[in-house]
């Protein structure tokens, strides 16, 4: 479709704005800017949200999407990401000063991402639909006039978006500059923002000269960074990357067994549990592996559960573990409530107290911490218990560590324990 100055990007609907409202000036300026840039209306997507600025939705004879208050920069960026790989598409989002206050994070995020789109902020200094309340963009001078939060400065969207990486950020007050400013913004590849100050005759400024007195600092700030391009990545199947495990050994165990490994962060309990689960599979068993640790993953306890069974495992809870392998104090404190006399409790010699001996007379005390360094104690302990209890062949455990980058270290630990 060819376009010329007769192409309109507006429907025949009457502007819904109050007499004297400045929003209509920006709408007409955008229409003219698009005419001069000869866009196909089917290449333009106008995004709007709630408030007086949102009343523009029915006015545009382009693609339109009309969403939630304060969210048009995010919704618009989503559309921009979605059409980024198509030719010549232009996303133009509108927001008011109230919406910009809600959606400030969205605006800064769009600025730093610098994906091609234009945001037009219709700043009439206040909330027009709900009674003239002030917004985060209401200017200092205006607030002095109405004597309302005059000591709280407004957000300077142009400086904020510039600092965040916007390619083109402009505040424009004079109505006769809006069209050319919008043209430049739309032609800019990347994120552009145009803040157009305007009148709200119902609650705020009644005359243009009043507005010009309170809204100062027309500002143009630019970056040279190129617009962010979007491409689809080719990615391999996660399933095809999964390690397939075949049965190579016979399992020693006769019926379902549950093991708890209780250590500290960084001590390898989680990796060891995974090795045990894989070793169980090499021995033809069904297995589950579950880890528990504080949200601060780098400190405190690290507890892992492993279940082995010849039969399929449905319920994965481990309420009465058969074996405890306790290598650190953090681990002991965490699993203490679960300890029971029917279980075999293997514990590092340093952790044994009289109270613990009294409660569990059949504690099996082993110098785990002397068998390997701190990072490998859990592996040494698990190897010791596996070997002692004949749950799985040690060869299955060696096979399980075989794909790890530290396999030589691990095999060495296993060999030393089982000598």
């Amino acid at each position, binding site marked *: 479709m060819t376009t010329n100055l007769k192409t309109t990007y507006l429907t025949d609907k009457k502007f819904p704005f109050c007499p004297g409202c400045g929003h209509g000036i920006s709408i007409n300026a955008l229409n003219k800017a698009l005419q001069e840039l000869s866009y196909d209306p089917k290449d333009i997507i106008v995004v709007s949200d709630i408030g007086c600025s949102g009343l523009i939705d029915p006015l545009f004879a382009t693609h339109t*999407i009309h969403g939630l208050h304060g969210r048009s920069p*995010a919704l618009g*960026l989503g559309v921009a990401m979605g059409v980024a790989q198509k030719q010549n598409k232009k996303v133009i989002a509108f927001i008011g000063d109230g919406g910009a206050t809600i959606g400030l994070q969205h605006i800064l995020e769009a600025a730093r991402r610098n994906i091609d789109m234009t945001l037009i902020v219709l700043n009439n200094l206040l909330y027009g639909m709900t009674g003239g309340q002030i917004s985060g963009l209401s200017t200092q001078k205006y607030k002095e006039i109405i004597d309302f939060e005059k000591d709280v400065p407004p957000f300077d969207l142009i400086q904020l978006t510039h600092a965040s990486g916007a390619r083109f950020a402009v505040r424009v007050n004079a109505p006769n500059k809006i069209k050319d400013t919008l043209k430049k913004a739309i032609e800019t590849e990347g994120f552009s923002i145009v803040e157009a100050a305007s009148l709200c005759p119902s609650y705020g400024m009644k005359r243009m000269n009043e507005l010009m007195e309170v809204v100062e600092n027309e500002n143009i700030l630019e970056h040279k960074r190129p617009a962010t391009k979007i491409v689809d990545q080719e990615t391999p199947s*996660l399933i095809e990357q999964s390690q397939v495990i*075949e049965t190579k050994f016979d399992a020693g165990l006769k019926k379902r067994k549950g093991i708890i490994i209780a250590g500290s962060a960084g001590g390898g309990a989680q990796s060891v549990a995974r090795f045990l689960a894989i070793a169980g599979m090499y021995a033809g*068993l069904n297995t589950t592996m579950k880890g528990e640790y504080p949200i601060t993953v780098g400190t405190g306890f690290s507890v892992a559960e492993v279940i082995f069974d010849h039969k399929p495992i*449905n319920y994965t809870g481990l309420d009465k573990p058969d074996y405890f392998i306790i290598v650190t104090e953090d681990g002991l404190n965490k699993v203490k409530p679960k300890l029971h006399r029917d279980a075999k409790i293997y514990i590092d010699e340093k952790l044994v107290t009289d109270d613990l001996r009294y409660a569990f007379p059949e504690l099996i005390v082993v110098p785990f911490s002397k068998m390997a360094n701190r990072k490998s104690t859990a592996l040494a302990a698990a190897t010791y218990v596996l070997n002692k209890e004949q749950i799985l062949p040690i060869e299955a455990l060696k096979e399980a560590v075989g794909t790890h980058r530290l396999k030589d270290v691990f095999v060495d630990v296993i060999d030393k324990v089982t000598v």
Partner: protein
Amino acid sequence: MKTKTSTKTLIDGSKLMIEALVQAGADTFVAYPITPSNWMYKYGKQRFPQFYAAPDEITTFQWMAGMSAAGRLPATSSAFPGIALMVESINMAYAMELPLIVIITQRLGPSTGSATTGAQGDLAILNGIISGGYPVPVFSPSSFEDAWELSVRAVKTAVKFRTPVFLLTSKEMVMYQKSFDLSKLKPITKVERQKPKIEGEYLPYKADESLVPPFLPLGNEEHLVRITASTHDEAANIRKNDPEALANTRRLRDKFLNRIDELTIYNLDKQEGAKDLIVTWGITADAARDALLSLRQKGKKVDMLVVKSLLPVAPVIYDIIDRYDKVVIAEENLTGQYKEILYGNRPIKHIKQVNKMGNMIHPQEIIDAVL
């Protein structure tokens, strides 16, 4: 290590769901990190053709809605604290009729609660998540096979019904690993999005008897598209409460309820002559399977209904439950949220509830309730 004979691996539900979503046609993952969705985030980044790290959950959903309106098929995963932030945006996408997928990994609430403890406590929220009481499709995997298949169903449903779809799972399904036979995974056919044939003017919310309007993306070359979340008529003109706009709003409910059979997924494990029924969903189904096995070994005749499409409630669920003299509904939350959705707060004589919070329900607790 790889052999031709074995198809067994150690795997988790997160990996299965992400892989199935991508194979089914979801193409963009947007998320803000939250426990217990961490593995989804990790796999989502590895596997989706596009991945975006959003600065918060409201942005997450807004980006997804924009992408969906432009023709992509986005997915996210989160937990209650993130879902709470998304609620207004979920309503927006629902009213706009945008296909997208939301995975919820349930954790113990209220509020921040306990991030690494599983739960089944967010069903009641989904039942009322759309202002005005409109239904959203909610699927809940009860096994790794379900994690795979329901993810595909979610993609299909999102496209077919032009709607957000929820996959309601739990920490215990997506953050533990289990030996699993990959040959149990059914091959996935990618959901192809047919370009609708539009004769004459395109009205973005005019639906035929399917009650689902044909979808054209923003920016397409053939027809101008208007999309809105405000109350609107077939042409997406914003209207207040005029009859045409209200009819369009009512359609948002009817499109699901009139085609409920296409949204209904369950498994009924039957035994000749059983008068007792265990009803369950999600992670508690594993305990129920063990309970069922144990009860049957003891000679007790009992059936089990695992509900996989929780919302909207299908009439067949009532039909099945009504056949039994005694029903045990087991779910890991304080009050029995699915039971309350089915029957309200009032106790029902022949229905027993097994509820728990902070820990998974043990098979023995279900056995005790049946006996």
